[in-house]
């Protein structure tokens, strides 16, 4: 364990080889939350980065052990709050798999559409925040304009903008709003028109390109050995899309490409996310007109009891692979629950990626990792 003096290091004294230790965070505008990085510098060159976690630890895993299989789903919205739908889906899928509950097709279609909308909303927020980290303020507003349309769709159908808790074991909590399909179509139309604005403002901008190209390079071998998943690993050329490897819901029925870049630098990670948004739009377009009629929730028992044993379910969130592992003793609550969060593994690669680069490049590297701190800390 660290004591207080070890965590907050004295920054006035130089280290053995003239090193300077700088505490970045927990309150820092670019760390998006309470991430504390202890950065060891030699002049302006980064020698080592040590992340300190625990500032937003809420012991969610332990909390879930006292909640029933219906109740524990809402807590997972509070982990990766930008892809709360996808987290909820993972938990619901696990309970359905364990109890062999049949999910109606309508619920599966709506779940997939909502998951992809969540992914787009998360990437939109990321573009705005990342551009702001690098000093561009305007893209933030443009990105939030499109994101607002998605949150309005969520508000209509799920009743909340961020922590929806709309997905229950067996299907959905209630049916979709009558205006759901029209609003999603209107969103797709606007998104296709406006996504070119990001190209003008961010992608083709010379300052942005020179700040991200060749910065924070992660090779494919390192991405695998650090356990990186999601856009971070795909930018290094690793095939790791769970939607392709182990399809859930209706992902097996839809056509979409797994976006792969090979450069492994910050710009590649940026491009992966931009292209992924277009793929998400493609998935939604295939499903939105063909939502089948029928029940929105399957038949479940009043009290859910997982059989004795171990269960694991993984899904692809906006940040990477999210896994739920439950050990059940046959009761109404889980005996032990473990979440595998994508942010934690991605953060562990940060020190390796930023080593040897300048401190200004750390912003670009960290920004493209798309860290959500409550997801890392739980």
């Amino acid at each position, binding site marked *: 364990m660290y004591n207080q003096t070890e965590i907050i290091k004295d920054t006035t004294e130089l280290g053995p080889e003239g090193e300077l230790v700088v505490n970045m965070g927990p309150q820092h505008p670019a760390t998006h939350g309470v991430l504390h990085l202890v950065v060891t510098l030699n002049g302006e060159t980064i020698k080592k980065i040590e992340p300190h976690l625990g500032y937003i630890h809420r012991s969610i895993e332990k909390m879930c052990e006292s*909640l029933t299989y*219906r*109740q*524990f789903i*809402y*807590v997972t919205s509070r982990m990766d709050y930008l892809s709360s739908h996808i987290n909820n889906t993972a938990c619901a899928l696990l309970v359905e798999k364990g109890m062999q509950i049949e999910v109606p097709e309508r619920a599966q279609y709506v779940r997939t559409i909502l998951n992809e909308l969540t992914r787009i909303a998360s990437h939109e927020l990321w573009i705005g925040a990342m551009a702001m980290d690098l000093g561009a303020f*305007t893209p933030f507003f443009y990105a939030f*304009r499109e994101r*607002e349309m998605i949150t*309005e769709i969520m*508000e*209509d*159908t*799920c*009743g*909340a903008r961020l*922590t929806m*808790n709309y997905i*229950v074991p067996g299907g959905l*909590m*209630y049916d979709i*709003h009558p205006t759901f399909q029209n609003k999603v179509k209107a969103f797709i139309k606007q998104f296709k028109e406006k996504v070119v*604005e990001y190209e*003008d*403002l961010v992608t*083709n*901008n*010379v*300052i942005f390109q020179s700040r991200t190209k060749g910065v924070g390079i992660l090779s494919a071998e390192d991405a695998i050995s650090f356990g990186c998943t999601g856009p971070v690993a795909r930018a290094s050329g690793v095939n790791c899309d769970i939607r392709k490897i182990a399809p859930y819901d209706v992902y097996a029925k839809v056509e979409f490409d797994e976006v792969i870049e090979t450069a492994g630098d910050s710009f590649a990670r940026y491009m992966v996310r931009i292209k992924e948004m277009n793929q998400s739009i493609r998935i939604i377009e295939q499903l939105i007109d063909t939502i089948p009629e029928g029940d929105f929730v399957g038949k479940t028992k009043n009290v859910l009891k997982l059989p004795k044993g171990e269960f694991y379910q993984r899904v692809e969130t906006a940040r990477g692979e999210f896994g739920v592992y439950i050990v059940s003793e046959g009761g109404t609550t889980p005996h032990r629950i473990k979440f595998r969060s994508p942010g934690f593994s991605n953060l562990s690669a940060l020190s390796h990626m930023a080593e040897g680069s300048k401190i200004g490049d750390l912003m670009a590297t960290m920004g493209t990792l798309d860290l959500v701190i409550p997801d890392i800390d739980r």
Partner: protein
Amino acid sequence: MFLKDYISDVYNGVSSLLKGMRKTGYYFTHPKEIITEQYPDNRATLKLADRFKGEVIMPHDENNEHACTGCTACEIACPNGTIKVVTKSEVNAEGKKKKAVDALVYRLELCTMCNLCVVACPSDAIKMAPNFEHSVFDRTKLTKILNKPGSKIREGIE
């Protein structure tokens, strides 16, 4: 070679800057496409989504009657102990003793708006309301009793 690179760098830099400025200029001259909501000023016209989960309420009809039987299904479904149902036994017209709700205590400060209580309710006695301006000076004001004083259960609900 160096000069050529330098000139192309300057050209690319200026052109990408102008591209971005053109976009900004477009919105500067088209204020109708700006979608900012003037929140505290537009309170009178602000309309939230009908399903918006702001707080739990218990609808009463014109005879001051509700549909809550006091079965505590919502209390069991709640993950945070937000709802506490206090029951009493009433003697009805036929002289039989019957369980009825005395007070449905709802603690808004603990509520996460997960909607599980509303789904669990067998008689649709409670629902979510789109009220979101909950700030008060005293925390105790957030503990509410949902059934109105003097209210009773509607006829025909078991």
